[in-house]
């Protein structure tokens, strides 16, 4: 009855409350009692008293025996049923150990890879979470129409300009790279890299200082904030605040890659703050911060570029803006568009430049940006890795689906009995799903154990030197793991659950063999696709490995063996060469500005003096005259560069490639020619021609490009020592000793050239190992699936085998008979997979410089591996089955 129509109703809220909590079986009669009492009391004592008593009664009714049970009143035995499902599931796992192992192990292997990626993403997501205003901080990216990826950097004046002109901006700060050198305090030096930052830095970001006042630490010129680590190295426990250090900038890059400039003394700095940078997980990493107001005085002395009003250059500054909490990112877009419209209106070259805001939370993991402030994997890589991992996961899930569906026959009776005794289809679906979830949780446990091994392997990759993955698990990550396992269980189990629950009880109990498909149509299709994918991965990893070996074995055209490269670290080359050449075991010593074929290069453009032709782009290498001797570069025409002491910028060497590009037939023709250098008034003269050698990494370029070599001692960064002694360690020890005398402040920084060249291929090693492990996983899972099917078939056919053997069939013929179907499957996979992987791999290989021969040999090797593993898998089952005594299988039943 509707309450609204009754004019004399008790307090509605309490009535509703009562209806809510009361056991449905008791509800009606008790409510009737309550209403009857209420009407009576109301007639006797009036509404108020009746209301109060009603409330009291309702509250006193709120007791365990009246309240409805939480688990629902109708299916009071749900819990017992679920328990039984899990019990049956567990017994099934124990009963069919091989299948359970295949399922659990396959799923676990795939899961561990997926979990690794979850960990990677969680690691990336944990960056910059400590900033209080993180959701309102944006980095400004610069988009240049001709470039595909946006730049992480933006014009220098942007931060100050946007802060003063647009009210939606609460604050803005910028970080200017270019600090990399040594701070010296009482003869002690410490290398540091970092940024210029302004006072707003601490308003925008939530970094805290261990020592010093963050309000004014970056206000005055010549102020410096250093990390606790550097403070400890420099001051060794003394109070750092207020101490002064001398800073010599060597132009080290903030990205911790090689590259140096001529040292320049930036003067005396006062330490105003100490920050514990280790504490903060941020995409901004630094060892030192210097107040931006310092730039001005440095610019006056010509030691740093003045960019105060420079809107042209967008690669030397990182800008961050803080919006007011009520502002939206669209407001920022409008402001930035307005600003670019004003600033670049008249600039023909940069007219289409766009400034875009990127939320701090979208930086790691984020889109691929140029000129990054720190290294991180772009989100595209995660998509790719997730794709691979999901492919493996899918493969493992398919195994589960396949095997569970195939086992319909074994479970048909159970299903029939359940249905006859009243189980609805829904209940059966639920039962099978609970089994698959049970399996997936078991896999999760195993995957966690596997992860303990996968994680260190991943962290050991070379690329992690730059990416700093920590991969800590925390409760959020575990939550995702469990969610993931649940999802895997549901998805893998859903098909068999629907399929098995569809069985007609009468057919199931009659054991009509036709019920589950004997043809294995779907299973075969899925299995074939697994093998195709496996073959593709195997071929790809073999090819990548060959390519890697090919790069390692490539002839650079110079001899890198026995050469030690020593970084000058700001010391004068003549002094270094004097000291180091005295060491016994050093055969020759030379100098250069960067090491050829290790990833660095400088470029310029040349043309023959007075020629009408366009400039020819060439690479420039600065060396002394002994460099050719050390690296065994052959001069094929003219003569070598003149002696270092009488060095003159005027003379250059060119390589064969440059000669050809400039239009000369014979190297000797060019000797003595004068050349014009782009952007320079001084002429240079070609004194000789050097044989072609590789000065770029093999993965960068195939054809050797033109290069010019000249002698300019002020640019030397490296000394190249040719060692003839067989005892490397002893020579190195002597080198170190000599270096200590030469430069007590820096430790000797050296590397063997051949090792360095091999190291440039490290990225390749990473890719090979990643693809290789995926190949391994793919083939493992595919073989597990095959193993499952083979086991099942042989089990089902044990009677047939027995009869055949009694009739006189031999072991071999029975094994062949059993294997035939699977062999056919393998052959089909190879038939499709081999051309497929050949074609796909050729696609990328075509664009690869210095590519290895990709013939049928590689594909054949892949096929052999696949076939071998497949045959072992099938054979293990079929031979075992065919060897069995037929009496055993026939006497049962």
């Amino acid at each position: 009855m509707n309450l609204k129509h009754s004019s004399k109703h008790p307090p509605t809220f309490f009535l509703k409350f009562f209806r809510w909590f009361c056991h449905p079986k008791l509800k009606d009669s008790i409510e009737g009692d309550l209403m009857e009492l209420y009407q009576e009391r109301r007639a006797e004592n009036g509404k108020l008293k009746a209301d109060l008593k009603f409330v009291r009664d309702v509250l006193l009714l709120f007791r365990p025996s009246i309240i409805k049970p939480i688990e629902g009143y109708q299916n009071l035995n749900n819990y017992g049923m679920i328990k039984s499902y899990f019990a049956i599931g567990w017994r099934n796992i124990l009963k069919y150990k091989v299948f359970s192992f295949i399922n659990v192990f396959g799923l676990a292997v795939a899961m561990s890879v997926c979990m690794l990626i979850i960990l990677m993403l969680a690691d990336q997501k944990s960056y910059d979470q400590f900033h209080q205003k993180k959701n309102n901080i944006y980095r400004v990216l610069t988009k240049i129409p001709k470039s595909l990826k946006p730049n992480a950097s933006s014009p220098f004046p942007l931060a100050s300009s946007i802060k003063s002109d647009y009210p939606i901006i609460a604050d803005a700060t910028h970080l200017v790279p270019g600090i990399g050198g040594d701070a010296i305090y009482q003869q002690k030096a410490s290398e540091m890299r970092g940024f210029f930052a302004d006072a707003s830095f601490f308003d925008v970001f939530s970094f805290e200082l261990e020592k010093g006042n963050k309000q004014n630490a970056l206000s005055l010129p010549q102020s410096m904030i250093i990390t606790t680590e550097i403070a400890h190295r420099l001051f060794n426990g003394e109070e750092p605040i207020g101490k002064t250090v001398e800073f010599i900038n060597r132009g080290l890059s903030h990205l911790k890659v090689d590259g140096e400039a001529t040292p320049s003394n930036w003067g005396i700095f006062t330490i105003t703050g100490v920050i514990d940078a280790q504490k903060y997980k941020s995409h901004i990493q630094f060892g030192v911060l210097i107040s931006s107001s310092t730039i001005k005085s440095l610019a006056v002395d010509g030691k740093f570029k003045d960019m105060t009003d420079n809107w042209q250059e967008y690669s030397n500054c990182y800008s961050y803006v803080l919006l007011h909490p009520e502002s939206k990112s669209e407001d920022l877009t409008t402001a930035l568009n307005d600003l670019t419209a004003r600033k670049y209106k008249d600039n023909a070259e940069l007219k289409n430049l766009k400034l875009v805001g990127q939320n701090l939370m979208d930086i790691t993991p984020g889109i691929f940006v140029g000129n990054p402030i720190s290294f991180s994997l772009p989100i595209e890589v995660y998509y790719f890795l997730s794709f691979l991992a999901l492919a493996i996961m899918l493969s493992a899930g398919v195994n589960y689906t396949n095997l569970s569906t195939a086992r319909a026959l074994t479970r048909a009776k159970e299903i029939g009995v359940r249905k006859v005794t009243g189980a609805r289809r829904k209940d059966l679906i639920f039962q099978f799903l609970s089994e698959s979830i049970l399996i997936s949780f078991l896999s999760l446990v195993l995957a966690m154990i596997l992860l303990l091994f996968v994680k260190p392997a991943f962290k050991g990759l070379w690329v992690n030197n730059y990416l700093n993955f920590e991969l800590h698990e925390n409760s959020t990550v575990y939550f995702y793991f469990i969610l993931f396992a649940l999802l895997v269980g549901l998805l893998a189990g859903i098909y068999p659950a629907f399929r098995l629950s569809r069985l007609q009880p009468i057919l199931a109990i009659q054991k009509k063999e036709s019920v589950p498909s004997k043809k294995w149509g779907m299973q075969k299709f899925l299995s074939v696709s697994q093998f195709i994918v496996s073959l593709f991965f195997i071929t790809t990893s073999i090819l990548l490995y060959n390519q890697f070996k090919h790069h390692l074995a490539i002839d650079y055209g110079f001899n890198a063996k026995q050469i030690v490269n020593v970084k000058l670290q700001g010391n004068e080359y003549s002094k270094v060469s004097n000291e180091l050449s005295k060491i016994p075991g050093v055969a020759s010593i030379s100098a250069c500005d960067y090491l050829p074929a290790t990833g660095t290069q400088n470029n310029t453009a040349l043309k023959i003096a007075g020629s009408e032709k366009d400039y020819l782009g060439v690479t420039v290498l600065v060396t002394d005259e002994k460099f050719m001797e050390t690296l065994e570069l052959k001069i094929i025409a003219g003569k070598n560069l003149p002696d270092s002491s009488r060095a003159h910028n005027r003379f250059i060497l060119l390589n064969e490639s440059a000669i050809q590009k400039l239009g000369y037939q014979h190297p000797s023709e060019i000797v003595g020619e004068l050349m014009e250098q782009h952007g320079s008034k001084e002429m240079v003269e070609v004194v000789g021609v050097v044989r072609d050698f590789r000065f770029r990494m093999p993965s960068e370029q195939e054809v050797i490009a033109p290069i010019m070599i000249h002698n300019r001692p002020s640019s030397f960064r490296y000394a190249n020592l040719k060692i003839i002694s067989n005892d490397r360690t002893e020579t190195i020890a002597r080198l170190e000793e000599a270096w200590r005398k030469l430069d007590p402040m820096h430790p000797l920084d050296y590397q063997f050239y051949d090792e360095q060249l091999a190291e440039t291929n490290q990225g390749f090693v990473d890719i090979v190992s990643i693809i290789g492990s995926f190949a391994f996983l793919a083939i493992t899972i595919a073989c597990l699936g095959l193993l499952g099917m083979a086991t099942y078939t042989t089990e089902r056919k044990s009677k047939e085998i027995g009869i055949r053997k009694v009739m006189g069939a031999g072991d071999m013929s029975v094994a062949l008979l059993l294997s035939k179907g699977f062999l056919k499957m393998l052959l089909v996979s190879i038939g499709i997979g081999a051309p497929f992987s050949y074609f796909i791999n050729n696609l990328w290989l075509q664009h690869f410089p210095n590519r290895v021969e990709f013939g049928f040999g590689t594909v054949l090797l892949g096929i052999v591996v696949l076939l071998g593993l497949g045959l072992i898998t099938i054979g293990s089952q079929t031979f075992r089955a065919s060897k069995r005594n037929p009496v055993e299988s026939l006497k049962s039943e």
Partner: protein
Amino acid sequence: MKKYQLGEFEEVVMLTVGILYKDAYGVSIKKEIEIRLKRGVSVGALQTALKRLEDKGYLKSFEGEATEERAGRPKKYFQITALGKKAMEHIKSTRDELWSAIPKVAWEVKIV
């Protein structure tokens, strides 16, 4: 012997159900107890006792008519089952035994 378990209030409820015979439902039981024993009975306490007694099998219930003052809800009538009767008899007999076991002297002392 713990064969028949019956609390004090439960016993009162059982007896009242017996008194009311064919007219024993929530409100009438409550009123009857209140009048006869002069003590307040909350709906909650009564319903709990009734449910417990029904669970023990001492009472059985059936749905009765719905009236307007009950806002259309049916009455739930209770009846004593055979088991319930046995339980009540058991309790009464144990009580009687105890009563008769008290020596007369005890009463005299009390009178003095």
